[in-house]
């Protein structure tokens, strides 16, 4: 069984990435925080007795499932909202937010030119990730960002290894295409990307 300290260390290590991943999926900081918090609590409550080595996979599965639950709830809520709004007043002040606006507000510090360029590249990548189909984004994040191998990613996603490879390949191609469209070539990306 893992100790409280081991759980704390593990969560400290993954929480930021988990939050970012969730933001890309749900496009809402508050909802993302709730989802990550839920996932952390579920991990501690239900799988606290498991060895620490199993935590990364378990946490990812819980996180992905919690995101899916969120989408299901959103779908139902949107259905009712659409239904009722068709009877209500036509407010032009929709709550829809532009992801670029949200991302733009994150960087308020004055930075040198290169830093600005990097921030812009990151903003483009994050926006592109949000635009990816859910399964492609999930595969990309688990395989490359969480550094899982193909088999682990397949287990976490509940699909075949072949599907993981296809999703990953399509995701990378789509991201590269978006970056090139924005004037960032693969070479430039390689220079700005920090080797892990």
């Amino acid at each position, binding site marked *: 069984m893992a100790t*409280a300290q081991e*759980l704390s260390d593990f969560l400290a290590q993954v929480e930021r990435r988990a939050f970012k991943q969730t933001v890309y999926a749900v496009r809402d900081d508050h909802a993302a925080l709730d989802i990550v918090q839920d996932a*952390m609590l579920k991990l501690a409550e239900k799988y606290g007795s498991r060895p620490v080595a199993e935590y990364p996979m378990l946490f990812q599965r819980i996180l992905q499932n919690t995101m899916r639950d969120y989408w299901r709830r959103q779908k139902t809520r949107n259905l009712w909202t659409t239904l009722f709004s068709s009877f209500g007043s036509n407010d032009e002040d929709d709550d829809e937010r532009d992801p670029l606006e949200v991302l733009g507000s994150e960087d308020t510090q004055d930075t040198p030119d290169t830093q600005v360029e*990097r921030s812009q590249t990151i903003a483009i990548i994050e926006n592109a*990730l949000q635009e990816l189909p859910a399964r492609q984004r999930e595969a990309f994040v688990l395989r490359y960002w969480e550094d899982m191998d193909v088999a682990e990613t397949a287990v976490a996603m509940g699909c075949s290894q072949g599907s993981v490879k296809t999703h*990953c390949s399509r995701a990378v191609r789509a991201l590269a295409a978006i970056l090139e469209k924005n004037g960032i070539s693969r070479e430039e990306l390689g220079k700005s*990307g920090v080797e892990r």
Partner: protein
Amino acid sequence: MMDEKNTAKAIVGLLDESASRLDQNITDKLARAREQAVGKLAQGARSAHDHNNRAGVASLFMDYFYHHRVFSSAALACSALLIAFVTTQQFNNKEAEGQGDAFLLASELPPEAFLDKEFHTWLEESSQQ
């Protein structure tokens, strides 16, 4: 394939950088969530410990009953004896009824003779003699 991996690595490098520059407000909230989760784990461990303690108390009672099972054995033996007695009594009664039937069937007179009114008169007279 290699190109794909390199592109992915470069993208991930930038994503890591972005994750490391999270807003202080968000990192504080994440830290609070982490503390809550760790608290849950400690709470779960405590409740498991309590459960074990309760199991210990229960096992003490079980030991008591185990060592005092002679009482329960005696009670069982008494019950068995009582049941045997009742059954034997019932069996004896049935046997007596069976013997009466056997006497009637073994007599020289046919069974219809016992139903005849004259038979009773003869029986009374012969008993008076």
